[in-house]
């Protein structure tokens, strides 16, 4: 049984049977538009980093898929298949209260990640899956290990940009709930949240009040 379940921008995801387990095979495909050397280097380093950091996040207490096998040379990771719904597709279907609770929890996990020195690098609602009661963080392909406030700020800014571009109907509510959760798990939250605003202001053409 093999089924292509997603063709992301970066990788193909194939659902398969792996030694009796339902597993996801994530293959970073070569990009024709990239110089072959640059392409190989990016795919290899991202595969390795993703596997390392998924472990690190899990140790910190943030739900992530289990890793079964890693092959950096071929840019392949075999991991646990998470059955659920992307938060991105869920936001508009929830009631007000559920939405707040969800983002409160997401903020909490984001705080835990940062406290553990993990920068997700692509912290958006497409990369968080609600699976039953679990909230699982996926796609650590752009992640890195760092305790720099700057990197935390950029990470948070990504989430806020996602709220502004895609979940604009509930942006304020979601950001507020996210911040509450983030503050609860991260003692250095204020500094990071402040940096998030600074990073946003640094962008092109922001009203500077």
């Amino acid at each position: 049984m093999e089924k292509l379940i997603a063709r992301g921008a970066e990788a193909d995801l194939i659902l398969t049977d792996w030694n009796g387990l339902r597993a996801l095979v994530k293959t970073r495909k070569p990009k024709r538009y990239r110089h072959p050397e640059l392409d190989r280097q990016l795919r290899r380093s991202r595969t390795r980093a993703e596997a390392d950091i998924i472990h690190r996040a899990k140790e910190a207490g943030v739900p992530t898929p289990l890793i079964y096998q890693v092959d950096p040379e071929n840019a392949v990771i075999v991991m646990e298949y998470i059955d659920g719904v992307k938060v991105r597709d869920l936001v508009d279907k929830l009631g007000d209260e559920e939405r707040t609770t969800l983002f409160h929890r997401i903020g909490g996990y984001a705080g835990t990640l940062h406290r553990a020195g993990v920068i997700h690098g692509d912290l958006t609602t497409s990369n968080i899956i609600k699976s039953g009661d679990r909230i699982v963080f996926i796609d650590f392909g752009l992640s890195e290990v760092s305790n720099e406030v700057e990197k935390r700020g950029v990470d948070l800014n990504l989430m806020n940009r996602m709220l502004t571009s895609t979940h604009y109907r509930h942006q304020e509510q979601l950001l507020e709930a996210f911040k509450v959760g983030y503050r609860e798990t991260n003692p250095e939250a204020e500094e990071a949240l402040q940096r998030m605003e600074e990073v946003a202001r640094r962008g092109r053409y922001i009203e500077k009040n």
Partner: protein
Amino acid sequence: MIALGVESTADNLGIGVVAGDGRVLANVLDVHVPAEGGIHPREAARHHSECMGGAVRRALDEAGVNAKELDIIAFAQGPGLGPCLRTGATSARALACYLGRPLVGVNHCVAHVEVGRMATGAEDPLTLYVSGGNTIVSGYESGRYRIFGETLDIAVGNCLDTFARAAGLEYPGGPDIERWAARGEKLISLPYTVKGMDLSYSGLLTAVTAELQTGRHRVEDLCFSLQETAYAMLGEITERALAHTGKPELLLTGGVAANKRLGSIVRSIAEEHGAKPYVVPIRLAADNGAMIAWTGILAYNSGIRTPVESSHVNPNWRMDQVEIPWRS
């Protein structure tokens, strides 16, 4: 319906005359070339004010239109360099008042998207807008152009221009870098900085300039490596945004759209995702007045007017703050 559009957000002074059906009757361009260094806002503004009268006259002559036949005066209200914007706005106000015609303030970034749609026939594209001052991936969603990705610091064109200057190449940097890159062979490792759907060029610029100063590399290889790295980053965020939005079309617009390598990257990505690629024609790629006039027409037809008393320029006007009633 005939509109006159004034573009003066940076170093280009553009006056365009466009008809209601999208025909570009005139598109006069007068570029300020600094004697040395980059754009000095005050010097560019002085250039614009000195050339304004002549450019308007030339545009009307080329279009074969009498000033009295103009129906609206559109101008780029932002974003851009304050002094340059104010010069264009002042002239647009004067024309509108003198002729007794309505004034329409236009967002410069929205205009790049709209002229791209008009010229290529793209209907609902994800747009990669790249120029000396901007690097933005946007798409229409519920009444606005939402920004999915953008540069966190300098624009790709700014990165290329600044490097070109350091390497003694021509301004603007893009075309000359592309010529030198064609003779490059070796890929020098440079910082590749993508953050989700955003990217950053300041580290790349610093690194490539430092490599140049070591004197260890051929300029051809540096241009090749800079171009490959800078455009691969653009390719990646564009691809992410395309996968994210599922838009059926991909449009490349802005001054850097003239680059052939970037065009081939965009086409390759579009093909990969089953989207239709579009590249804005060269004559409408760089900052120009026709795009302002055309967007002014769209806005005017949706009931938008900019009374003189609220026609102050906004150098920080983001494109995602603009209501787009003509698409809803």
